């Protein structure tokens, strides 16, 4: 695979690493009992601890720790029995303590890896450096008043998992696939809701460029991207910017950048002189976090099937392609839907590929058009199964089935009901089809002449005419065979 991009003078390779910030799915914050509900009125979910009142102390939320361990297991990573919370010191209006509690030297999760799958059937491992727990900051609202900044502390203290990758990513698409895969794993594990719009999952992108085979170049970090689209845009823009500088003889300054979503450009956030010295040190208010092997085993046993396991299972049982299986397992709701559909009728197992296609193309496009999610699909897995059964037994044609699905989607009726009501059963009766063929031949003598003179392509015309007369119900295979025979006569 050629991952190089062309500059004016040379070919360049991107080197990309991601720091994903995933909000831990938990009812309460990392060190306080305040609610984490999204969209509540400003400062309505702030405890004395979150507001850093004098004498207030953090107490670890054990559930968040379990969630982090679960996630570590899902990332095939080493769980550390001993980890330490540190203070990252800096001043900002929405950081009430004047420090963020994070994990620096001893993270709760160590090295791991995730696999991304390409359309061509190949796949690639992206290595994970670490996962650590940390507090989120509050929110500064600069647009509420011309001369004032307001601070909303609802998010202050919410638990985040920072997942740091090695710089193993080489293209914007890989970056997109990597974050999708992480999101998928977290959602299977139910350790993050994966909602990027609400900021539950965001990423900082580290990117540098180099000529193939060279050492890593100097990198820049693009902060706080909350959609896959923006991540790709930002990477593309930033890579071009760096290449232009390098090709014109300049050098890259290590910098923290912000991405402007309306202009599609990156710009430096702060310069070197303002670079922070965070003065990390172990938080003396908290004891080191110790997790026993037994606890880890217990948490491991509670973990559901993960996308890669499920993918391999689908490949093995249903003989699906690696790519089909990975599409199917990318989101838990999709694999759940597939499982329910294929298990709704024992016959369907033989038609797994058809089931995949009907879910990932026909049903998905209807859902997309109607801005719906698979979770609130008007067509239940059982009903889709019934439709596919009708196709597989030749009761209706694939073409008609599309109309039936649309009808099911809007009316909520079952496939059987619609097919019966509208009389859409496929015509397989030879005599009936022959009758129609005779009619078509009789009405188009000139065409028949031309066909017999060697214009084979006209067969399609006759098929179309016959289908028109049967309202698409004629079994295409039988129709074709009979038609060829009749024309030759």
């Amino acid at each position, binding site marked *: 695979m050629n991952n190089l991009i062309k500059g004016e003078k040379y070919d360049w390779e991107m080197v990309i690493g991601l720091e994903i910030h995933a909000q831990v799915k938990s009812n309460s914050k990392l060190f306080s009992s305040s609610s984490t509900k999204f969209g509540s009125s400003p400062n309505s979910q702030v405890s*004395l601890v979150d*507001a*850093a*009142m*004098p*004498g*207030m*102390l*953090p*107490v*670890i939320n054990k559930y968040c720790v379990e969630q982090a361990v679960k996630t570590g297991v899902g990332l095939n990573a080493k769980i550390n029995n001993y980890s330490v919370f540190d*203070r990252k*010191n800096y*001043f*900002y*209006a929405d950081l*009430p*303590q*004047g*420090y963020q509690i994070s994990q620096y030297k001893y993270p709760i999760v160590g090295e791991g890896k995730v696999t991304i799958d390409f359309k061509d059937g190949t796949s690639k491992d992206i290595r994970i450096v670490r996962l650590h727990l940390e507090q989120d900051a509050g929110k500064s609202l600069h647009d509420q008043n011309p001369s004032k*900044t307001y*601070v909303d502390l609802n998010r202050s203290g919410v638990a985040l998992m920072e997942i740091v990758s090695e710089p193993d990513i080489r293209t914007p698409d890989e970056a997109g696939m990597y974050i999708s895969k992480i999101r998928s794993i977290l959602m299977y594990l139910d350790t993050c809701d994966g909602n990027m719009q609400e900021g539950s999952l965001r990423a900082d992108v580290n990117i540098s460029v180099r000529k193939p085979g060279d050492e890593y170049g100097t990198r820049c970090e693009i902060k706080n991207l909350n959609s896959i689209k923006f991540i790709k845009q930002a990477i593309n823009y930033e890579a071009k910017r760096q290449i232009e500088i390098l090709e014109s003889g300049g050098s890259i300054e290590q910098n923290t950048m912000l991405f402007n979503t309306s202009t599609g450009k990156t710009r430096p956030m702060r310069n070197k002189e303002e670079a922070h*010295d965070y*003065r*990390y*040190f172990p938080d*003396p*208010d*908290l*004891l080191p976090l110790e997790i026993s092997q037994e606890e880890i085993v217990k948490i491991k046993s509670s973990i559901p099937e993960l996308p890669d396991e499920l993918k391999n299972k689908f490949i093995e049982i249903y003989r699906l392609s690696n790519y089909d299986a990975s599409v199917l397992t990318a989101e838990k709701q999709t694999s759940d839907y597939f499982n329910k559909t294929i298990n709704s009728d024992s016959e369907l197992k033989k038609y797994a590929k058809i089931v995949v296609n009907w879910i990932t193309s026909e049903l998905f496009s209807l859902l997309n058009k109607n801005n719906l999610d698979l979770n609130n699909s008007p067509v239940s897995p059982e009903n889709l199964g019934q439709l596919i059964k009708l196709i597989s037994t030749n009761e209706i044609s694939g073409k008609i089935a599309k109309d039936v699905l649309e009808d099911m989607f809007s009316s909520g009726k079952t496939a059987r009901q619609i097919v019966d009501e509208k009389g859409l059963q496929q015509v397989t009766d030879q005599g009936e089809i022959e009758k129609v063929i005779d009619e078509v031949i009789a009405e188009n003598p000139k065409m028949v002449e031309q066909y017999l003179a060697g214009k084979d392509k006209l067969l399609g015309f006759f098929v179309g005419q016959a289908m028109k007369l049967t309202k698409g119900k004629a079994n295409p295979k039988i129709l074709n065979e009979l038609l060829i025979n009749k024309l030759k006569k």
Partner: protein
Amino acid sequence: MSKSSLKQTLKDLDTKKISIRELNQDYLKRIKENENLNVFIYFSEENVLKQIDNLENDNSAKKLKGIPIAIKDLFCTKSMPTTAASKILENFHPTYESFITQKLLDEGSIFVGKTNLDEFAMGSATNTSFFGNTINPLSKENEPLAPGGSSGGSAAAVAADLCLGATGTDTGGSIRQPASFCGVVGIKPTYGLCSRWGIAAFASSLDQAGIFSHNVEDASILLQSIAGFDQRDSTSAKVDIPNYFENLDDDLNGKTVGIPKEYSIDGTPMEISQIWEDAIKVLEKKGVKIKNISLPHTKYALPTYYIIAPAEASSNLARYDGVKYGFRSDEIDSLDEMYENTRAQGFGREVKRRILIGTYVLSAGYYDAYYLKAQKVRKLIANDFNNAFKECDFIVTPTAPSAAFPLNEKQNDPIKMYLNDVFTVPASLAGLPGISIPFGKDKNNLPLGIQILGKHFDEQQVFNAAVSLERSYE
């Protein structure tokens, strides 16, 4: 001045020899007579009378019902403002009650006021307070003496008999040293025995609340009331709290006392060495085995302490930024300016000095040489004690290297001031319990203190040794 003890007062209240109102009127009168000592940052007669009213209508039995207690103004209290003796919290009214003051309230005690301290407990003379110096009640006329610090207000409140007990906090000696200077009893329990929840933090890994009282028995009663596990403090210990008072036993026969040779420091006044020797002799007479021990890393304790405590403080005090509560400067054209001016105007010199030291020792490039090394030395110091306690049941040393000094001495010499903590800091770093009891006088008839250190959570042994020495001295 004949002072009634807490123990006796509880009896008198119980037998109705005196009413809660009469008792507290007596203390109120003395508080008003001693306003010149500047013991309290907050005192309101009305507030005290209200508490008396409430208790008079309360028929439930409570252990400390009606007992007047003074609270160091580092403990957050709902009914009284809390300042930490800083301008930055000048008008701060907590909406919550600290774990310890809540326990005291639950037991029915009456809070007479909030006592003065060094700003954010940083000092050894109660002279860095935004609200002015506290004067040691033992001062001669025209020669005001320092009460020690940082809990100088609480020590002075007990010494002047303005209450029957007071809370303090001790980070490097802030209970024991002022107790010694004011001639009262002061105990700093094991780190983790009393919850830090609701106490404005100075140095989290060292801060520990404790008690001032007229005598050891009273201290044992009061410590009992404030000790105990608190799930809101992750460093709070889950240990059984014995009934210290009931278990008091002054028979030390067969016990071993450790006498650390490193505490004989050149330049220590004769009188200090003398009372130390006297204490050892008394113990010997009581059948205690005298064991010379070595705590070899003692000399590193002060520098270690003055790295770790400021490091933690620099971070703990970051929350006072003018954004959420407390003082905010008027000169604020930008966020950075708001921070700079708020903190420049809101903090006093000593607090700023320690924030700067702490920021420095945690900075990139210096962290390993200072903070990390200090943490290692801290472990060595703790190990010294662990080894020593294999050979002895408790350790006896002087509490402070001098008696109370004149108010303005050492004011401009922080190093000299820091040397005050030389005998108290090692036990703080090791998290061990320590008590100071009055034991002898210097040539100016000022009280001197003896410090007794015990094993982790062995407050009972500390009390036993203390009560034994106290009774022999009386």
